[in-house]
C-alpha cells in the first residue's frame, strides 16, 4: 500500500550505509501490513528493489536458508536479514517490526470475534471466506506439487503421500511423523545423489 514512495537519493548499487534500527523496524512493519496472504513478495520488493539493502542473489540465498529451517519462513527471514545488516539488534528490530503491528491487529480481531462471533451475519461471511481460504491453500499445494510430479521421482511422491496420510487422515502427532520421515528422506536423498554421482 505504502510502497509508492519514490526511490530516494540512492546509488545504482547497494545502499552505502546500513539502515538504522528504526528504519529496519519501519520497513518490516510496512511490508508486513502490506502483505495480505503472504509477505514474501513485499519483502523482496522492499529489501532488494526499494531499499537496496541486498542484491537479488543475496536475497535468494538467505531465503533458501530460511526455507529449509523449521518455523514460519518470513519470521526467520526477518531475523536473519536484520542481523546480517545490523547484528542481533537489527535482527530483533526487523522481527519486532514484522510481528508487532499485525499481532496487535490480530488481537483486536480476536476480541471482536469473541464478542460478535456468534452473530449470524458474521458466521455466514466467515464461512464463505473459510471456503475460499481453503481453495487458495489447495492452489498453493498444487503449484508446489507440480515440479515434484514432473520429476517423476517415485520416492519423493511416496514420501509426500505418506506424510499426507499420516497427518491428514490418521491425524498422528507431527513430531512423531517427522522424526520418522526426516531421517528416511535425508537418507534416501543422500544415497540417490551418491548413486547419480558415481
Amino acid at each position: 500500500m505504502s510502497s509508492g514512495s519514490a526511490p530516494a537519493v540512492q546509488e545504482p548499487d547497494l545502499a552505502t550505509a546500513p539502515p538504522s534500527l528504526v528504519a529496519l523496524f519501519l520497513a518490516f512493519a510496512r511490508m508486513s501490513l502490506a502483505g495480505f496472504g503472504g509477505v514474501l513478495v513485499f519483502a523482496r520488493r522492499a529489501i532488494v528493489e526499494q531499499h537496496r539493502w541486498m542484491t537479488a542473489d543475496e536475497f535468494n540465498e538467505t531465503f533458501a536458508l530460511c526455507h529449509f529451517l523449521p518455523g514460519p519462513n518470513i519470521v526467520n527471514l526477518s531475523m536473519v536479514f536484520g542481523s546480517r545488516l545490523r547484528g542481533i539488534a537489527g535482527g530483533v528490530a526487523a522481527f519486532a517490526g514484522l510481528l508487532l503491528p499485525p499481532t496487535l491487529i490480530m488481537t483486536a480481531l480476536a476480541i471482536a470475534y469473541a464478542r460478535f462471533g456468534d452473530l449470524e451475519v458474521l458466521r455466514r461471511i466467515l464461512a464463505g471466506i473459510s471456503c475460499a481460504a481453503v481453495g487458495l491453500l489447495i492452489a498453493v499445494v498444487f503449484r508446489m506439487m507440480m515440479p515434484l510430479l514432473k520429476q517423476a521421482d517415485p520416492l519423493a511422491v511416496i514420501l509426500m503421500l505418506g506424510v499426507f496420510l499420516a497427518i491428514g487422515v490418521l491425524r498422528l502427532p507431527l513430531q512423531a511423523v517427522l522424526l520418522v520421515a526426516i531421517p528416511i528422506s535425508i537418507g534416501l536423498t543422500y544415497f540417490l545423489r551418491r548413486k547419480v554421482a558415481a
Partner: protein
Amino acid sequence: MTGHSPIWSLISTFGLMSLFAVGGAAAAVPEMHRIAVEVNHWMTDKQFADAYAIAQLSPGPNVLIVTLIGYAVAGIPGALAATLAMCLPTALLAYYVSRLLNRPSQSRWPGLIQAALVPLSIGLMAASALVLAQSTDRSIAALLLTVMVAVMASVSRVNPLWLLLAGGVLGFAGIV
C-alpha cells in the same frame, strides 16, 4: 482448565511445534488443529476454521493464527505468549544457523537437507488443506466454492484477497 497455567501450556505447545514446522506455517495447521481442537478442546472445529479464515484475511504473516488460538485460551496474555512461542525459537535458530553458514566452508548438506524436506513439507501442506476442508466444506455449495477458488488461483494471477472477499460476499448472501 488444566492443572498447569494455560499460558505455560501455550508456550510449551507452540514453542515445540515451531521447531517441527517444516515448510512454514501452513504445514503446521493440522498439528495446531489436532492440539487446539482434538487434544485440548481449546476451540471448536468451527472456531478453528474461522480463526484460519481471519488469519488469511488480515495483514501480516499467516502464522498469526496462533495469536487467535492463544487469545481463545487465555485472553491477551495468551495471544502474545502463543505468538512469541511460535516465532521466537525458530527465529533465534535461524540467526545462529545463518552465522554458522556464513563461514566459507561450502558444505553440500544444506542443499541436500532442503531437497529432502521438500516432499515432506508439501505432504504437510496437503494435509492442512484436507483438515481445513473437512471442517469448512460441509455443504455441496461450500465444496464448490472451494474448488472454484482453487482452480481460479491455479490458472490466473488474480490477487488472493479478491477471492477471499468474494467468498465473504457469497457467504453473506447465504449461498454457501
